[in-house]
């Protein structure tokens, strides 16, 4: 494993579509795993190889050349992708599940949560909802939603 402070890390999205990392004469395709997706600086990432071994640990102080920084940024967007809720249209309780219908930045979506799986508050004041399939729905500012959405969410936020 390569640690911060060692030879410069280079990252590039190659023709085969994969993100490649190179350091100390060694290179391999990697994927980005965000270490603190909700709490700390988002540029704490672990670069994992095909065998899920850590190739490099990147911190906010890591100096990357502009092309590598851009490649990392793009990979982080994909790795950190969650559906961002812009309005709550309906929440209905059914047998053993809660059925949500929401507008997201990506389009209208219906999803289901377990009845006792409560939305989680993130350190930035957002609300994170995980559905039964494991998909995450993020409400960045519950207080900034329209009145109807806030009314639907009332039971789930403090």
């Amino acid at each position, binding site marked *: 494993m390569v640690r911060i402070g060692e030879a410069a890390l280079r990252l590039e999205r*190659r*023709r*085969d*579509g*994969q*993100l490649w990392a190179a350091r100390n004469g060694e290179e391999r*395709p990697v*994927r*980005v795993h*965000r270490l603190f*997706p909700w709490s700390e600086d988002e540029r704490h990432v672990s670069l994992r190889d*095909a065998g899920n071994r850590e190739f490099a640990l990147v911190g906010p102080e890591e100096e990357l050349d502009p092309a590598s920084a851009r490649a990392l940024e793009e*990979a982080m*967007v*994909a*790795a*950190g*992708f*969650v*559906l961002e809720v812009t309005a709550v249209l309906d929440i209905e*309780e*059914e*047998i*053993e*599940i809660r*059925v949500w219908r929401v507008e*997201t930045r*990506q*389009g*209208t*979506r*219906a*999803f*289901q949560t*377990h009845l*006792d799986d*409560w939305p989680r508050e993130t350190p930035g004041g957002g609300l994170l909802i995980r*559905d*039964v*399939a*494991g*998909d*995450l729905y993020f409400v960045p500012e519950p207080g900034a939603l329209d009145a109807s959405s806030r009314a639907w969410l*009332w*039971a*789930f936020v*403090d």
Partner: protein
Amino acid sequence: MSESGLKNDQGIIERYLGQPARLPDDVRALGEGALGGSVRLYAMVDLDVELGLTQRWLLLGDQRVALVEPGGEAHAFGRAEVRAIREEPGLSATLLHVLGRAEEAPLAELRYTHRQRRAVENVRFVLQQQIEGRDVDPGDADVEYARAVAAPVREAQALVAGNRRAVLWRLLAYLAPYRKRLAWGFAAAAVITLVSLVPPWLAGYLIDEVVRPVQDGSVPAEKGATVAWLAVVAMALVYVVRQAAALVRLRLMAVVGELVARDLRGEVYAHLQKMSMGFFSRKKTGSLITRVTSDTDRLWEFLAFGVVDVSLSLVMLMGLSAVLLSLDWRLGLVMVLPVPAFCWTIFWHGERMERLFLRTWRKWSSMTDVLGDTLPGIKVVKAFSQEAHETGRFSARSADVTEEANRLHAAWTTFWPTLMLAIQGTTVLVWAFAVPRLLGLGGGGPTLSAGTFVSFLLYTTMFIYPIEVIGQMTRTMNRATSSAHRVFEVLDTEPEVVDVAEPVRLRPVEGRVAFEDVTFGYDGVRQVLRGVSFAVEPGEMIGLVGPSGGGKTTVVNLIARFYDVTGGRITVDGVDVRDLDSAHYRRQLGMVLQEPYLFHGTVLENIRYGHPEASPARVIEAARAANAHDFIVKLPHGYDTLVGERGQTLSGGERQRVSIARAILHDPRILILDEATSAVDTETEREIQEAMDRLVAGRTVFAIAHRLSTLVNASRLFVMKDGRLVESGTHAELLAKEDGIYRTLYTLQREMAKAI
């Protein structure tokens, strides 16, 4: 998967997920054109390159893979071109690269949410197997897609929530065997309703026909007294009849509810016993226990009281409205018109309370989470001196609960007095309309008699209860249908392993077991056993060894017929296990597991579990053979000592020896030992090993063991890896194989043992 299983999964997708339940026909046509043949497996890919929601389709054919874009454009590449598949999983999206030649653009890049993950992984699995030189038959494409996409919701809920009315009718059908009692219960409730209408009428009659005529001298006092006393007696009779009917109704309905709950409990539990292991691995035990206990209890409450209360409240409201309107239609309208508004207000209050309860429940969960975290981990709390922190955390959450509970109490304590005030407001309105007419001052109607007015006032007090019941009717029915649904879900699940119409009973089982090109997958696509073949003679002891995930446990699960094979066949004494009477067959089968399970009961009952008629002498003999007799005798109540939950605590080794004694008494022809000695210390292991040596003698044995040293005396060892039987032979034969997997594993274990 059965036809109903496919329909159920497609129903879930249509109802909840807002995506096609099967491959759209136009996409199939386009795909088949691009594939040059039929679609063998498919998945929806729901994110585009910008991570916006979309509907792309990934289709797998026999020779090619196709992608159909939302606009209808289709492109394909050969399956043989796929060199590797790389995955970049993220928080909610996965990026999959299907790679062709090195240094060239990927054959496909797929982005999808976790919802599509299982379906995409099905396709990926088949391609991955092809890369590794294995051919997989993917099964029915529609079934696999529906199963994969619906799985998360199905596992959370199991059945499509369906039509609540249909569930309610089905539940009410359970009352059919008790229709006579039910009819009596309804009749008694009808009597209660009818006689309840009598006292107010009688009061009005007494005032108008007796009291006032006597007071104004138009009727002699003696005659008036006689009629009045008759009315008093009638009133007394009414109350006696009412309470007698109440007694009949309460008792009959309570008993009927209890009988139906018993029927449901029995049916659910009997059905659970028929279910295969796959069902129990998908369902949490706690959830199943709740269905047999709490849900049936809630149904008792609904059937015993809810059904009658709701129907009779409706009758009562209609009856009261009719009586009031017939007594005086003008005043009647004043009283009756607001009733729908009152019912709606109670319904609205119920909805509001649901949200308040939800909020309180969330806070309550948050508080109990602290308890659940810290009490089991109290050593860590103390070791890090976090007592004050944890106390503060708990207090804060407890205060949150109190705040929410107070909000809840504020809501209902405000609502009910306000509602009562509104109902009493209508009574005041009745007064306001009635007084001018009582005094003969007009007021929009003829003069009102005092008796009619008193009757009216008494009837108005009877409105409150039925209004309350009807207002809460939706909630009552929702709770009952939820419970009924959970119960029916179990009843509607078909066992995956079923006996044929005329099953074979082997008498006796000799213990010859053969696997013939057996393939098996728990989810239909991913195979955990691939073309496994072997033949075992009666009395052989087979050691199953190999890395984790190799398929060892699956082999023994299939021998026990906990699941049916998906390809090939397993025979016992030459007969396909699917043709055997499974109950009879399992009586010839014994299992000793890593975590032996003892039921709550005595040691004696546990040893006798499969043979309750076994004599004490045979029990002791089995216990001696299992090296269990000595420690059992030392227990305070010997063989009558209670063990299992809430009983005497036995060590892992002691529980194991009791389970071996149980297996010895059971005297199986085929014995399965699954890591039976791995959870005990060396001395105990020696004692258990001795017991095992006696147990295995003369039987066909399949033993799984992590410690290979315990299997060196096995007749043969089967090495399982990646679902295949890769090596077989005696310990000596396998050790002689250079670069053999067994030899490598054995050498590694010996070196580790030496190092320790």
